[in-house]
């Protein structure tokens, strides 16, 4: 089953490739003709040039599209920060999130007044590119 399906994949891609290469060959022929036609027939040469370039551009684009493998894969790990606050003196510190942290957990005593400190916030900050749109 898996063998069969993998052979089907190659068949598909070779068919698409064939179409692309025919287009590419055609456009190259058009370009060569255009160059040879410049001296005798100017208008025809421009037309051929146009068609040649369009065809070449299109086929290379499709070629790269199909060739392009999926971009590098990964599950993003956003950086999450934990804010620890002292309820008595207001001392505040921010550090990276550690497993076991949760909001309203009491952690080690304050450096200044030995009162137990409290985790008051855990969040991640996202820099969003502000795209200017009409809406």
């Amino acid at each position, binding site marked *: 089953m898996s063998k069969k399906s993998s052979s089907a994949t190659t068949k598909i891609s070779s068919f698409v490739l064939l*179409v692309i290469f025919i287009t590419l060959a055609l456009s190259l022929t058009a370009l060569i*003709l255009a160059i040879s036609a410049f001296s005798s027939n100017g208008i025809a040469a421009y037309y051929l040039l146009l068609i040649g370039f369009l065809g070449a551009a299109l086929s290379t684009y499709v070629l790269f599209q199909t060739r392009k493998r999926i971009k590098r894969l990964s*599950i993003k790990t956003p950086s999450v920060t934990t804010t620890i606050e002292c309820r008595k003196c207001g001392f505040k510190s921010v550090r990276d999130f550690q497993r076991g942290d949760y909001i309203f957990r009491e952690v080690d005593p304050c450096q200044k007044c030995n009162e137990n400190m409290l985790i008051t916030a855990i969040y991640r900050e*996202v820099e969003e590119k502000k795209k200017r749109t009409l809406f």
Partner: protein
Amino acid sequence: MAGMAALQSQIMQEPFGEFSWILTLLFYAFFFVFMFYGQKINTYIMLREVEGSLFKLKYLRDEGRKIVIETIKEIGKPQTDPTARVDRFLEYFTISPQSLDPAGIVGKLEHILDVRDTRFKDDVKLMAPATDKTQVNNLENTLEAAMALNFIYKVIRHFYLLGKKTLSLYIIMQIQMILPLVMREAEAYASALKAFADGQPIGDGAGALVAAKLTHGHPTRNIAKDCVVAAVPIEGRTAYVIKAEGPGGNVGKPGEAIKTVVEESEGEIAMIIMVDAALKLEGEAVGEVAEGVGAAIGGPGVDQFKIEESILKYRIPINAVIIKEDIGDAVSPMRKEIFDAVDKAIERIKQVILEKTKEGDRVIIAGVGNTIGIGQ
């Protein structure tokens, strides 16, 4: 296309005699290929597109499974390799009750969900014996996210293979059309999985955080399964603030909890306010706070049904405050915008209480959502 070919042959007739017919023929061939095989080419291109996404889904699924197994090994300290058990877990399914005769279906659904929950927790405990209640809840959430990724991958793969077998444009089109949304959901589950594995608060916990900020410093008691309540004085009123019991990942049973509080006070409740995270529309800002009426709660509907039943009995007005976010924000670590919106939501709640109730009244405030990483 045809016009182009005709133009081509006309222009080229004179200047290059021997080349022109080849070119004309090629252009015609090209034209006919596209005319008769256009749809097939389209089908192949779509198949490739689906194939690319399928690669990504497979990667997400495998990565999710890996994270689950690593986390279990790290915090669960299992005696044996948990891989086989995890693989079996990922294939679990739940059959929802028959709805031909819908009367009483909510009770049946609730029962099935309870059985599922117990079964999952028992299994997690077996996989990872050295865990406390919080960690069991977090691991269960992590496993459920991995399960969702596995399911999405398998469904898309099914349609892909079916499409390839039949080469039917319509089978492939169906899946290709919804693919962008499916991918978004899969990516959301993947980031949720990481957050669950670490026990980080997620965007969906906005409602629970509102409740936590209100209850903090007041004694809480268990009211329903995995749910706590605290009596908090707010603006001269007594507010019964309900939330799921943190900091383990679970949503509790707010429906049951509200019902119990209403029954305990014999319907002497002036108002219920529900706070929840809600999906925003594209274009709305993350962390926008909005107000409305009705039971603001998602999930399979059991809790919403119960809340509506119990408030109907005593005709208690129900208000909702929601914090807006998109699906990705809802299941990934809580964004600062959402965290800041919690204080705005509390202000709104106080305003509603001041405007709509009298001093000495009793109100219920229910913070709905997954309380992972949020204590009380």
